[in-house]
């Protein structure tokens, strides 16, 4: 996802496309962006947890959002 685009929303939409073969709706994009922002803040406050997932809090948040995307019903049910 990170390699796809410098823009966060685009990255997450690409992830959704990869997992579900469907375009992410504007609501889905904004939900996922909010999740990423909130999780980045969480990981900044918990560096011990953050480092278990990735080098930086932003990258850790991206891992978490990727995990969430992979668990979407539309990713699991074809």
């Amino acid at each position, binding site marked *: 996802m990170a390699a796809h685009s410098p823009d966060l929303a685009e990255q997450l939409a690409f992830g959704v496309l990869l997992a579900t073969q469907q375009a992410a*709706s504007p*609501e*889905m994009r904004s*939900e*996922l962006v*909010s*999740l990423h922002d*909130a*999780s980045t803040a*969480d*990981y900044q406050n*918990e560096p011990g*947890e*953050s*480092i*278990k*997932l990735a080098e930086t809090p932003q990258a*850790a948040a991206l*891992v*978490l*959002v990727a*995990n*969430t995307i992979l*668990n*979407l*019903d*539309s990713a*699991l*049910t074809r």
Partner: protein
Amino acid sequence: MKPEHFARLQHEQLAHLTRRHFLAKCTTGLGAMWLAGAAERAWGASGVLKKDPANPLAPDLPLLAGKAKRVIYLHMAGAPSQHELFDYKPDLLKLNGKDCPKEFLEGKQFAFIQGVPKMLGPQFGFKQYGQSGAWLSDRLPHFSSVVDDVCFIKSMHTDQFNHGPAQLLVHTGTQNLGSPSIGSWATYGLGSENQNLPGFIVLTSGGRNPDAGKSVWGSGYLPSVYQGVQCRSEGEPVLYLDDPEGITRGIRRRSLDTLDRLNQKIAGETGDAETVTRIAQYEMAYRMQMHATDAFELKQENEATHQLYGTEPGKESFANNCLLARRLAERGVRYIQLFHWGWDSHGSAASEALNKGFSDRCREVDRPMTALLKDLKQRGLLEDTLVVWGGEFGRTPMQENRGGVDSPFVGRDHNPGAFTIWMAGGGVKPGISYGETDPIGYEAITNKVSVHDLHATMLQLMGFDHEKLTYPSQGAFQRLTNITKPGSKVVTGVLA
């Protein structure tokens, strides 16, 4: 405030957050979606129980008054030999070593016996026990102390003589794949008393899963939420239940909130009740992270209890699973299915032979199943817990002669004509033996009980008429007792 108090409050708040969050969300779109799909979907269609797809395991009342509020089924995979456990046949003892009379072989299909086998008398001594005078072999010394609580059915019979199809028949009502198991029907009909644990839990021991595979606890054509959840008695109770490294409970909570919202949109678009159920299951998994670990923590039990069951901490064992079954029953789990593997006493290997491995199996189950009955009774749970013990068919009174050669090991072939099960608690009449087999224990002859009769009886004890608990599939209303096999009846003789 101390840090641990704060963390605890945070935890409790997070726990409440799920329920409040969920109830608040219930009004958004779910009602409309459900109505839209109701006519087509089987949730709420006529002839089917009304369920809320967002809460499919909510406790439900049965249609009749049933004594059994929960079931613990102890399945002995491989088919334990009734001749060496419960069905004492002195006539068979007299025939020991003689050639099998022709009339017992004509028209019969055997799994492995060829030509003319020898008759095999009971390999262990039998005595009578308790006020009921129940016959029991010397392989089950502990069990002799609880026979007065037990109802033996000696006249069970089936039409399957191979393990996979026979196990499917016992647990799903048909020898073919695709039908729901008894536990699925039970949780469909009754829901569960505990929303933090699965309503139908499966525990295995003996080193292998049953031959029929995981379909014996599958949900078939019932919504998949009613399938059995296999838990383990060593290590994590449920694989992958714990959050991975780097994801804290708080972070998981937020990710789940997002997932819930996104999945609800998807559910609205697709109208698929299974999506709604998936949301419910993720939420349950979140709650299970706290509650399953607690339920499975055998260390909480005192030493006396561990002695009673003969548990082996840290290992997978039938004893551990029996103790777990009691703990899960206490916590309101509706259907607890145990499988113990290794009873297939053909006599082709030491591990299962009557003169070797069979005694090990008996030792593995004798103390724990006795403990389970005593423990449930002492806690006042036995009267509304139905306990069932049995295999998938019986064994022949003839000695197995695989390939026509004498073997150093002693065994019997498969016999669908007669087998013994026992039941206790949950409205079953204690201290009786129901039904009889012929003088050599080959065929059930008096008060025969088919597998479907057993199902009808179990459903009755849970409060259901087996012909009325149905679900549409393939153009008909299907039921556990199998519409292609009419004539199943409740065995009133075993009801208290």
